[in-house]
């Protein structure tokens, strides 16, 4: 899945997470750049990163900048928001 524009999903409400998936500069080489801000960063920062990477991998996203603003979201919510943001960041108009 190729990221071609900014895609955003989720909210800053408690229990939710706001995810922004953006394209990176083509010269920089393919990689995932994760920026995580969480109210539970100390306890769950690594777990959040793991879930985000796993979801992007399942979607076939290998080159993107991903910003996470977490408000205590559970894993299912993180997965759903990353998926929605990534799909919104692609060129395909099929499944929105």
């Amino acid at each position: 899945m190729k990221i071609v524009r900014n895609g955003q999903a989720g909210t800053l409400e408690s229990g939710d997470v706001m995810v922004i998936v953006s394209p990176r500069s083509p010269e920089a080489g393919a990689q995932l750049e994760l920026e995580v801000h969480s109210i539970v960063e100390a306890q769950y920062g690594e777990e959040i990163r793991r879930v985000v990477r796993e979801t992007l991998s399942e979607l076939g996203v290998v080159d993107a900048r991903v910003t996470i603003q977490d408000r205590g979201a559970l894993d299912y919510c993180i997965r759903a928001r990353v998926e929605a943001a990534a799909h919104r960041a692609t060129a395909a108009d099929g499944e929105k």
Partner: protein
Amino acid sequence: MMIATNAKERIRRSMLFVPGNNPSMIQTCPIYGADTIILDLEDSVAPSQKDAARRLVVHAVRELDFAGAEIAVRVNPPDTEDGKRDIEALKHVDVQVLLIPKAETPEYVVGVDRQLGDLPTALIPMLETPAGVLRGSEIAASCGRVVAIAFGAEDYATSMGIQRTKAGREVFTARCLVAMAARACGVAAIDTVFVDVNDEEGLAADTREAISVGFEGKLSINPRQVETINREFTPTAAQIDRARRVVEAYEDGIRRGLGAIALDGKMIDMPVVQRAQTVLKMAKAAGCDGAGGERE
């Protein structure tokens, strides 16, 4: 296609709508004790957020524990792109029931039936327009997946160009028609929402009226309404006791080969026995068939 064997018998006193794009509410909804949780993709989700809500609901159903509640999803109207995508996405997770909004024809429900293929998902069409209400029995009998039909009074009133009142006289006829259509087809009738979440007495009275015309459950838009709805639909201890005595007297009469059976000086005929059996079934399903917890 075969729906789950218990899908038709399942008790659905309270069916609680939960906005499908609100993770906080989705996570906490199991604690309120609703018999059915309806994750809503239709009216409570903004048009721009339909895709995000669909994904959230799919992952929630896949990963969360809903504490034994039946999981239903109200999809968008199946003749819209969003409705078609909802149904397609939900085919991959264990949703027990789909609520089909604004059903007006049997063909509308049959289309969803076909889309579901061999999956065991049950359907509850919502009758929310005069056209839907008038074809209630055809819709209820449209396919084997239909386990209940639900009345949506708010959209019905809009379609009729009439004002809703708390007394509900303006929707009484439609309500009765929905209950009759359900009974005629052997499916359950689920009543409309009661919109004033601060009026508990009004909710109780509205629920009693629904019961009095044949409804077996009620839609709810707020967790605070669940307890009242469950209480009103649960038989009282006196009703359970009377029902037990009726069934016992009837069975005793059959054993003794009696032609006419009486209890407390009144004849017991088959409709009386069947009503008593229904009370016992409701009591058992509600967990108050002698194990304690009966209503006074």
